[in-house]
């Protein structure tokens, strides 16, 4: 692919670190939209198309999506060192903040209003995760084999609480078989 684009060939290590540091700090309730804004709109390190490709690969691989994306982007511009600095920048501030929060929470854990607020956040956040599942299910809802695989995974992991390793070892090959057999 050699489409004309204004994206740079090189981004310095320092720029990678600082860029992802800002993403980590701004990412309330999900980091991806902020990463897209920084990478595509503000700094123009990637085109929209390149960002989508990095994202789809990051989502397909195991591990936190945004961490995978930062590794891939860091590598693209600065090789191994970039692939280390970008995720470090991304995680540094959130890690510090969440540990400070946890320390503060421990000090006020006996205050009923604080515990209540925590329960309220958990309840709302559970709804966020459910909504994410519903959104992701929409594109596959018309394909019978995909709905079947998704349902079996849900029952096995969510209801039966079977160990994840065995569920994946058993079902990923079956799913691959269907995807290959039913390919267009």
């Amino acid at each position, binding site marked *: 692919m050699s489409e004309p684009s204004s994206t740079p060939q090189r981004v310095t290590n320092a720029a990678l670190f600082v860029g992802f540091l800002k993403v980590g700090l701004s*990412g309330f*309730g999900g980091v991806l939209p902020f990463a897209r804004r920084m990478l595509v709109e503000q700094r123009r390190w990637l085109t929209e198309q390149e960002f989508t*490709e990095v994202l*789809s690969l990051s989502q*397909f*691989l195991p*591990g*936190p999506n945004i*961490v*995978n994306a930062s*590794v*891939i982007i860091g*590598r*693209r511009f600065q090789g*191994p060192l970039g692939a280390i600095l970008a995720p470090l920048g991304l*995680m540094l*501030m*959130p*890690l510090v*903040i*969440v*540990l400070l929060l*946890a320390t503060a929470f421990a000090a006020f854990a006996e205050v009923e209003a604080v515990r*209540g*607020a*925590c*329960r*309220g*956040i*958990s*309840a*709302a*956040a*559970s*709804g966020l995760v*459910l*909504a*994410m*599942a519903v*959104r*992701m299910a929409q*594109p*596959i809802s018309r394909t019978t*084999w*995909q*709905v079947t695989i*998704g*349902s*079996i*995974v*849900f029952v096995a*992991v969510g*209801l039966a*609480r079977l*160990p*994840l390793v065995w569920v994946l070892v058993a079902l*990923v090959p079956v*799913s691959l078989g269907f*995807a*290959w057999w039913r390919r267009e």
Partner: protein
Amino acid sequence: MISPALLDLALQFLVLSLLSIGGANAVIPEMHLRAVGIEHWMTDAEFSQMFALSQAAPGPNVLIVSLIGWKVAGIAGALVAMGAMCGPSSLLAYWVAHAWDRFRDAPLRIAIQRALVPVTVGLILASGYVLTRTNDHTWPAYAITGATLVAVLTTRLHPLWLLAAGAVLGALGVV
């Protein structure tokens, strides 16, 4: 001298790293199973509180991992757990990224993507279910979960407002 607790943390999350297809949210049931059920690192209520704190902080969902590590072995635990959770998957991403670009339109690549989507959907749905069962113990709590679900699907409200609404209702003693 590396403490057994740190080693245990590292082992648990090194494995989870490679199983987390769809990100950290996809392995919440497995984290809960290991941290509360098998290892007895914390109670249900503590797991629930950590989930809340990780959501209230800026940054990716994977932050809950650092809180589990922190609970087990302090700051060192937080760093070890986070490193273990991100390490193997990052190495894989580093290694695969190059090859992946060259097979942009290969049928096998497209088949792998189509195969993993339903697995991810099933895992995230299981996470939502397990979180709801772990976090919600009263009908107002279930109502907040349900209202948040509906609000996300039908409005364009930023998720932070929904979390804030949950926090306020909780602090007022509703939940």
